[in-house]
């Protein structure tokens, strides 16, 4: 009886997932992408870069910029929204960080891919002078792999953006653009995933959280380069019982890992956030913006109580940081925490959107966080579980919420959304998001030019042409 017979008998037979991903990444070309898949990937690139541009306005972005200089100098890749170019790993770290610093990202199936795969692909693409078609293909590779690895570990301890799966796809994205062969690609996954990065739940209330995709993006590029130079790695790191997924998750459903690869395109399940905040809060935010339009900002003073009806998971993420001592607002004021925890707090987002009629990066700056009326409204939010929304979320990923305003005169106003704007079944024009993100960063004409170039990436011969449009000219 051979080793494989014994494995079969013990139910331990495993498909060679890492090598299959490596062959997929090495062999996929733009021409093999269905038109709809390429279109979604281009939308994803456009929207993610919009997020990065908006994120570049946050105080933490400047720290990322200055701090990552330790990674070296060199004119390789663009920091979106800044004039300079830096080495590709540093650019990936910065752009992945700004892409999530206000939680304005996206997800494929249940994996928040855009903020990892787009910065990784763009930075590597610039370093390799890749075409737009190759960058789009690399982004699709990232989505397809991340969608599957996230499904495989969905019954583990991590949810949503906490899914510790990006070390698998990041090196494949980079390695594809570096034209590594399948063995080198598999080795790159080994180097990328060997020190399996799980995130500490506590860090989601500080700027540390930007590293959840930033580190895999940066390290994925380094790993691909290590493999390119011949550093030997394991060829089965993803699926092995002592490998990556088994290290980061208590349960691994191996049947998800290769399901439909190359045929069933998970990229098509892209959900893009229209507003910066945790996905579970978006329907409530949209409802609050509509209520502001109906009422006007002055009327918020007559609100006595705000009730958010939603699935239990919205309540869970919204209230996680309400138990700090001193409380989260005081810790933010004293720079002991950043705004980040408020990106998960539906109550804060609803309060800010009711007062300001919008939710952008500005509502996560201290000036708005400590606005007395925003603070007052934040303090009068209550939550209720809506059983129908709970069922709809778990059955069909419907992220619904209803916001009720209980006014001083006893009247109750409400708005409800059954699904978030930007869901796969409720889309919006991603140019809107790019332009909003670019608003305070790029001159308008330059932003329009960049949006157009990103919309037609398949025509771009060298992605550096687009990178140049994402570095502000004199305004």
């Amino acid at each position, binding site marked *: 009886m051979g080793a494989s017979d014994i494995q079969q008998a013990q139910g331990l037979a495993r498909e060679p997932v890492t090598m299959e991903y490596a062959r997929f990444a090495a062999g996929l070309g733009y021409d093999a992408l269905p038109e709809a898949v390429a279109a979604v990937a281009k939308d994803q690139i456009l929207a993610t870069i919009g997020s990065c541009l908006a994120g570049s306005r946050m105080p933490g972005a400047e720290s990322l910029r200055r701090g990552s200089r330790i990674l070296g100098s060199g004119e390789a890749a663009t920091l979106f929204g800044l004039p300079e170019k830096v080495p590709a790993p540093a650019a990936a770290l910065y752009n992945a960080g700004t892409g999530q610093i206000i939680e304005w990202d996206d997800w494929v199936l249940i994996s928040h891919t855009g903020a990892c795969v787009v910065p990784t692909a763009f930075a590597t693409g610039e370093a390799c002078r890749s075409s737009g078609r190759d960058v789009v293909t690399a982004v699709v590779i990232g989505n397809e792999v991340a969608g599957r690895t996230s499904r495989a570990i969905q019954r583990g301890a991590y949810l949503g953006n906490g899914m510790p799966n990006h070390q698998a796809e990041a090196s494949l994205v980079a390695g594809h653009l570096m034209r590594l062969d399948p063995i080198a690609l598999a080795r790159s996954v080994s180097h990328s995933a060997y020190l399996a990065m799980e995130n500490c739940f506590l860090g989601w209330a500080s700027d540390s959280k930007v590293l959840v995709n930033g580190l895999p993006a940066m390290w994925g590029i380094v790993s691909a380069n290590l493999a390119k130079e011949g550093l030997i790695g394991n060829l089965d790191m993803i699926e092995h019982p002592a490998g990556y997924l088994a290290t980061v998750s*208590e349960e691994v459903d191996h049947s998800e890992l290769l399901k439909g690869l190359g045929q069933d395109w998970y990229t098509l399940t892209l959900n893009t956030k229209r507003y910066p905040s945790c996905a579970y809060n978006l329907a409530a935010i949209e409802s609050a913006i509509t209520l502001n339009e109906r009422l006007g900002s002055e009327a918020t003073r007559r609100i006595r109580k705000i009730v958010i009806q939603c699935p*239990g998971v919205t309540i*869970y993420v919204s*209230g996680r940081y*309400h*138990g*700090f001592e001193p409380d989260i607002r005081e810790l933010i004021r004293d720079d002991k925490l950043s705004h980040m925890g408020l990106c998960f707090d539906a109550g804060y987002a609803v309060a800010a959107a009711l007062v300001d009629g919008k939710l952008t990066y500005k509502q996560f700056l201290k000036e708005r966080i400590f606005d007395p009326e925003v603070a007052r409204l934040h303090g009068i939010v209550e939550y*209720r579980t809506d059983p129908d929304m*709970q069922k709809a979320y*778990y059955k069909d990923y419907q992220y619904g919420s209803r916001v009720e305003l209980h006014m001083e005169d006893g009247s109750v106003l409400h708005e409800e959304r059954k699904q978030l704007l930007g869901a796969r079944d409720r889309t919006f024009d991603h140019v809107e998001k790019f332009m909003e993100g670019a608003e305070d960063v790029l001159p308008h004409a330059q932003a329009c030019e960049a949006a157009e170039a990103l919309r037609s990436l398949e025509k771009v011969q060298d992605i550096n042409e687009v990178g140049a449009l994402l570095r502000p000219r004199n305004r």
Partner: protein
Amino acid sequence: MQDDTILGTGLRTLAQRWERNGYQLMSRRLEGALGREFRFECAGEPAMSLMLTAKTAAIGPADPAQPAYATIAMGPGDWKQVFSGKWSVMTVILGGRSNFPKHERRYIMQLSMLMQALLLLEA
């Protein structure tokens, strides 16, 4: 004799609600919290246990000879917030006032979500 401790009162309410409405909250992604015994500890009170199934909620004094799947321990003030539904167990954990051992995490999280969702479900 009626148990009027914080844990006794809170868990009794939780159990009643679970048996009446818990079915409305269940999903495959949360079912890991079912069929496992959780030990609840509150300073100054006897420890109690909770085990949920799809339809039932069994509560009772914790058996020191019977190891629970996970132990959730916190102070009286925090338990009051948890049983009011205002906070989840995870809120207290992230506040640094309850432990979060790695091997117990995913089901503590699932139980935390279920408890709060249940307590904030309008009966």
